[in-house]
């Protein structure tokens, strides 16, 4: 009995290890072995295509690396002299044909799979009545223009189970829109209009970041999509954005360089700059940018509406501007 057990032990241990590894991979299915858990039909179909490719490439990987290891062990030198030659085989036409044709077939299957999944990835269902939202990638924030004229910065709100059609633009450099759970990327290219879509299948907030190097604050150019009930969405675009637009603009656009309180950071301190109290001067610098001796400010609000400008002017005057202390020599 113990003898039989001992003989079985290695295979039992192996089986347990394999099971553990599989469970580990399964538990970590959001842990980097597949794309993140999809929350939009396009992303789900992308995942299907990913699995098909993964299946084939895994088999090829095991065959190639396995043969390599087997040959390395089996045909190793074993103390033979360097002069001892291996089998002088110069080639084999049938084998060459086999390992040409089989990869062609595998690639054909992968290609067909991609084309079968493609329609559901590329375009929204035809019957959908999409919400059309424009995304503007700026140095260094995402702005979202809703159908009713509302604007939000950094966070896109959308109702669940509704197709959202996104038009992606940029006024300055190339950015790339990417929310992994909702699908792939699309570049925001100056002078060009691109499209992408999603349909959030569950409530929640989904994070992403700009995927195209766009300058100093590329890493800070984060985006969040909040998928919520239709009522909450309507409340957001009709009430909340209006009330918080100035605050969103300050913290999503200005604060990146000038600090949350305007105390300065990458850009100069502006909290006690009287420019903040002069709407037209403020608009000029926000719309056109500024080049000083220390560096340059991009035209962050190049395409902003008058309402956006007004919201910012009101917000900074009330919440950010701190007049310099009387007799103070710094600031200005």
């Amino acid at each position: 009995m113990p003898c039989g057990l001992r003989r079985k032990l290695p295979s039992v241990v192996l089986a347990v290890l394999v099971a553990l590894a599989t469970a580990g991979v399964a538990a970590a299915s959001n842990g980097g072995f597949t794309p993140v858990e999809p929350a939009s039909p396009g992303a789900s179909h992308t995942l299907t295509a990913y699995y098909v490719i993964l299946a084939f490439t895994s088999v090829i990987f095991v065959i190639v690396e396995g043969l390599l290891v087997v040959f390395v062990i089996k045909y190793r030198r074993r103390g033979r002299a360097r002069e001892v030659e291996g089998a002088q085989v110069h080639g084999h036409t049938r084998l060459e044909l086999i390992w040409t044709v089989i990869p062609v077939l595998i690639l054909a299957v992968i290609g067909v799979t991609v084309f079968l999944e493609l329609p559901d990835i590329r375009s929204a269902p035809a019957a959908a009545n999409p919400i059309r939202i424009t995304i503007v990638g700026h140095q260094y924030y995402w702005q979202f223009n809703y159908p009713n004229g509302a604007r939000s910065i950094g966070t896109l709100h959308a109702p669940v189970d509704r197709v959202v059609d996104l038009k992606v633009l940029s006024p300055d450099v190339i950015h790339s829109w990417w929310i992994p759970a909702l699908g792939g990327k699309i570049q925001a290219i100056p002078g060009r209009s691109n499209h992408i879509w999603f349909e959030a299948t569950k409530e929640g907030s989904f994070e992403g970041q700009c995927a195209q190097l766009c300058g100093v604050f590329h890493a800070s150019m984060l985006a969040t999509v909040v998928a919520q009930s239709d009522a909450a969405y309507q409340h957001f675009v009709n009430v909340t954005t209006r009330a918080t637009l100035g605050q969103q603009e300050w913290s999503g656009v200005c604060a990146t360089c000038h600090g949350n309180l305007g105390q300065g950071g990458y850009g100069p301190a502006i909290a006690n700059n009287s420019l903040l109290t002069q709407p037209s001067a403020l608009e000029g610098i926000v719309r056109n940018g500024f080049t000083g001796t220390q560096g340059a400010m991009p035209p962050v609000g190049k395409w902003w509406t008058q309402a956006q400008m007004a919201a910012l002017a009101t917000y900074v005057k009330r919440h950010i501007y701190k007049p310099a202390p009387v007799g103070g020599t710094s600031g200005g």
Partner: protein
Amino acid sequence: MAARSEPAYPVSWKSGRVASWLVTVDHKRIGILYIGTSLMWFVAGGILAVLMRSQLATPGEHLLTKTSYNEVLTMHGTTMIFLVVVPILAGFGNFLIPLMIGARDMAFPRLNALSYWLFVLGGIVLWLSWLSKGGAAHAGWWSYPTLSENFPWASPGHGQDYWIVSLHLLSLSSLLSAINFIVTIHNMRAPGMSWMRMPLFIWAIYTYALLLLLALPAISAAVTLLLLDRTVGTHFFIPSQGGNLVLYQHMFWFFGHPEVYIMVLPVFGMISEILPVFSRKPIFGYKAVAFSTIGIAFFSMLVWAHHMFTTGLGTGLDSFFMISSMIIAVPTGIKIFNWLATTWRGNLIFDTPMLFAIGFIALFTMGGLSGIFLAAFPVDWQLADSYYVVAHFHYVLFGGSAFGFFGGLYYWWPKMFGRMLDERLGKWHFWLMFVGFNLTFLPQHMLGLLGMARRVYTYHHGGLWEVYNLISTIGSGVMTISILVFLVNVWQTQIARKGVRSGNDPWLADTLEWYTTSPPPPQNFDSVPYVTSARPLRDLRRRLAEQPQ
């Protein structure tokens, strides 16, 4: 007798110990200069890589500023591609082409020297970029406009201009050496060496030269237009004035994708030389390996827009470039299977060059397979510009090209210098680099799938992001140690002169470079045996063995 002997004839300054290298037109010396200079840049570019990995070790690091991080990533990529991989392969080409085909030098020795010195100048100009006002170029090695344009919020100052001018110099250098390689290979092969008897490295470096000629003009044009935009006020890439940014992407990648094969085909050639010698067998399927090289080169000109799937090209173009990219996997697969079959029933000798060749197959296979995910454009929309891509191209360019050229260094070192690199240190170098490489780049696949974009100077996620990033940084440290082991090995072998002297042919190899002495005399050969097969030296050994003593 005079106490002091005067030289019988005046000795020119040109024969001085250093000066003779500066004025040399000998292909072997130029090759060694190329390789040495490239290795120096490899260390410089590697330091930049370790800086980036240290910055990314944990979330919210402050080792590098966000400004300098963008400069470092741009200079790392540009240095590794244009100052390391391409020129080190040109170095191997220079050293090996005449020796392998039984010629006395390249067709145009002075042009050869000019190529080298243009490369030196290009490297200096690129790194001068650090000193320019506004800092080094910081728009990535693609330098996509408008980020690379001369706007105050994009790339003001002259860093980007240095980058452009250095690319011009390096392109010119590569074009001249490509012409030299092609002319030499066409015209100067030893008697009997038909195309089907050429060493496979010669096939590969010939294809490398052809691709350079075809691809480099595209990037020269692209960066010239960019330079005009930046300096004289044209608007080729300024959309508000009617410019087109997608045009730059097409021009850049029309060069950029063949460039990938430019950097890996000669390494394929090296592997096809090393594997048979250390398997004691001929290459399996000589013709398949040679023609698949040509096949890869042809299709490499037709796949460029798979770098642009997220540009929004439309289904038609995306589909074309997916299919062409998948087709290129076929000749690549043929090579891998033929290499595997070469080891089959061999007498495998695991000297350091062989270890690197085996490591190359293992790692390059991985890079090739992850490429299939990226070729499938809907999947690429998810993976593009993420750390998955960073992992993929490092498996191809480091796991592939760098493992290959290190194998080549260990293999041809005795021919270059007459001494063997130390085997024990060589094995340490290989294993540390193999383990360190996988630690560094395997977790980056996962990071990309988790949603980490490339070229970010920091991130704010804990958990798996932090774990994978930390493992990756530790791996880069292990790789650093492996490179130090290599440098110690070079020091001991050459400078401390502890390396064992090699004979003409320490590996019992197959090709003509092993027929002459190590190192070879200036004229390479006094006579060259008539070539009757792709393995002239083995033929010679067999003839000698058959002769009665």
